[in-house]
């Protein structure tokens, strides 16, 4: 079946189910997911939310715009979040300081996890064991062990698991990847991603004792730095394009500007190796004045640029350069003159073919809506646990490579 026509007019959950069975990368058939309470068509999906910080509150906002959803419980170790969530939801949401307390409740249908990444695996596994589908922010684990354990738990419990790679739900990115896989730019050989910030990546902290809780991104014990926080989305796109996970990583990282006590780099360059000599390159740094986030996919017959707003496909000019001539050049001769032509010094790709998002499309809202559909219809999401493993394992091994400055092999999924 043609993948593009398959994408048209299908809901994302249908799409998710089809893609997961159609592609070897999305793993074997999984047991039918079980949930703790049976959900009938008119029931509102009751959501328990762990870690409603900045990303978490954005997810909650999008869930509140999704029909048939209730934010039924929240958990955070930082109590001021509770009032923020109550305000957002417009009513008091029962609050818990310990995730185990939240998971003990019997009235929840699905669990969202948006804590810092060090807790993802532990909380996600506990939530699945408690019989609930999980939406877990990226990356699914902090260590290689974590990543494997989350996959194990998903297989063992048969639970629905979605990772926070919302770019998988952005229509213009979906279409880009489908065009690449259909051969529109020939064989894709390279994915180049950059995400260049223009700030210090630091959060203002109301009180110094909260530094590590709020600026967890800046410290090695709690963060894989820019590679994990920003690069994971691009690595996922490369995995999607190449249809596999990377096998090696070579990387480097340093502090070039912000000598302010952080222990992760303020800039990162990493090269991931895929089969058949294919490569993915990621760069992130702190000083930038133009479009901050771009992914380029290069193929043997063209290239494709993806931004957070649109995508553009550039085709190489046709390889055939001669054609049958019917001119009278033989009779009349040719003229002589000046030869300089500025345009021929640097061949220009031309304006390219634009792929636009649907008006007002928000990938996070689509991702949340699709997850809720999956919970109702008991289907595995498109951004399933294999997708999460792909970026998670690359980032956790990548972290070691960046710090130690040598090439690391990325292991396969544990047997």
């Amino acid at each position, binding site marked *: 079946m043609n993948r593009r026509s398959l994408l048209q007019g299908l809901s994302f959950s249908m799409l998710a189910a089809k893609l997961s069975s159609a592609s070897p990368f999305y793993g074997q058939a999984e047991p039918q997911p079980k949930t703790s309470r049976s959900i009938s068509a008119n029931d509102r999906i009751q959501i328990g939310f762990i870690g409603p910080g900045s990303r978490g509150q954005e997810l909650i*906002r999008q869930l*509140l*715009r999704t029909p*048939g959803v209730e934010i039924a419980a929240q958990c955070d170790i930082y109590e001021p979040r509770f009032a923020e969530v109550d305000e*957002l939801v*417009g009513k008091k949401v029962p609050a818990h300081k310990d995730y185990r307390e939240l998971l003990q409740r019997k009235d929840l249908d699905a669990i969202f996890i948006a804590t810092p990444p060090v807790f993802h695996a532990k909380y996600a596994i506990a939530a699945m064991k408690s019989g609930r589908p999980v939406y877990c922010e990226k990356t699914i684990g902090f260590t290689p062990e974590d990543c494997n354990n989350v996959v194990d738990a998903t297989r063992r419990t048969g639970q629905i698991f979605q990772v926070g790679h919302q770019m998988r739900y952005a229509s213009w990115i979906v279409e880009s990847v489908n065009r690449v896989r259909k051969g529109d730019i020939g064989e894709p050989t390279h994915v180049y991603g950059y995400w260049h910030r223009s700030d210090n990546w630091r959060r203002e902290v109301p009180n110094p004792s909260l530094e590590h809780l709020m600026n967890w991104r800046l410290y090695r014990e709690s963060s894989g730095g820019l590679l994990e926080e920003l690069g994971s989305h691009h690595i996922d796109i490369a995995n999607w394009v190449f249809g596999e996970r990377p096998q090696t990583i070579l990387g480097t990282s340093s502090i070039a500007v912000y000598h302010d006590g952080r222990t992760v780099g303020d800039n990162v360059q990493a090269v991931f190796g895929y089969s058949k000599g294919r490569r993915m390159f990621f760069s992130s740094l702190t000083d930038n004045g133009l479009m901050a986030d771009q992914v380029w996919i290069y193929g043997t017959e063209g290239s494709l640029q993806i931004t957070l707003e649109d995508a553009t496909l550039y085709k190489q000019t046709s390889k055939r350069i001669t054609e049958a001539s019917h001119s009278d050049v033989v009779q009349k001769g040719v003229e002589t003159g000046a030869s300089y032509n500025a345009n021929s010094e640097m061949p220009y790709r031309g304006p390219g073919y634009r792929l636009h998002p649907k*008006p007002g499309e928000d990938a996070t809202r689509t991702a949340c809506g699709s997850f809720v559909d999956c919970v109702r219809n008991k289907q595995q999401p498109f951004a399933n646990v294999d997708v999460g493993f792909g970026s998670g394992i690359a980032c956790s091994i990548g972290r070691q490579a960046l710090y130690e400055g040598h090439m690391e092999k990325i292991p396969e999924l544990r047997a």
Partner: protein
Amino acid sequence: MDTTMNPATQLYCTTHPAMGTEYSLYLYAGSHQEADSIARSVFQEVDRIDGLLSNYQPSSELSRINRDAFQHAVTTDPETFRFLETCMAWSERSHGAFDISVGKLMRVWKFFGASGALPSPEEIARAREDVGWEKIRLDTAQRTVRFLSAGIELDPGGIGKGYAVDRAVRILRAKQVPAALLSAGSSTIYALGAPPQEAGWKVRVPSVLLDGATASTVVLRDTSLSTANLSEKNFVHDGHFYGAIMDPRTLQPVEGTLQATVISPSATDSDALSNALFVTGPEGRAQLLETRQHDRALIIRRKQSAQQHPIAAEYEAIRWPADVARESATELSSAREE
């Protein structure tokens, strides 16, 4: 440097473009650093509201509602829903003088993203279907919005800046700023606390007739002031002046009112009420203000003089807390008449 040792005695000022205008913030803080950090959070909140309610940004929640609410009931977040409830309450209270469903009307009169042009009578007649707050249905239990007519388009122009100011002032209060003045392009202003040794923040209400002249100066503390007038967008056709404030009931730009200024504890309310008072006639105004004992208004209308001279004005002050310089206007009109 320990900022807690610094009393907030230095005045800082900053501006920020948003909602098609420029926001200005004056605030007292203990250090530049502190002022910067407060201003950032304030403008972040303004941008957040813009991202929620803008009818110019296709990604806003309001735009999503505009696109989808005729096709199906749209589930929205509690904040947007409460905002829409407030809008509907103002429509009801003002018998439709205030109405956020004027989006199509603004387009027909080319006031959307432009400065206006005369539409054909057929275009106006066609807009009738697509305007009217009664065609917006809110379902509180489901938190959904639904339009009963396909062409309904919400335009938050008469209340959105006020709402953004209210939300931003919450941030100032949470950060315990002792004194600040926040202005949304001067049409909505909130005065928080008072500058040192002052009773409040002075705000000048301009005379509409004479450039640079002041009709009244009020001193405000912990309250808001909004002004509706036609200085922003307008056009002249065949010697007739058309401004960008619409009467949703006649589908025409309002005639006769030159300016309406309202003082109210809530900026959302002063914004909406100034627009409602601008639109509605004298009985409507009296009725509206009767139920709002905490609100004050100064309305400037064109005087219906025998010679139809365009620049004579009459002033209507309701619980207005300061003097109004009516003379300057009269002097001006007689001066010009010579």
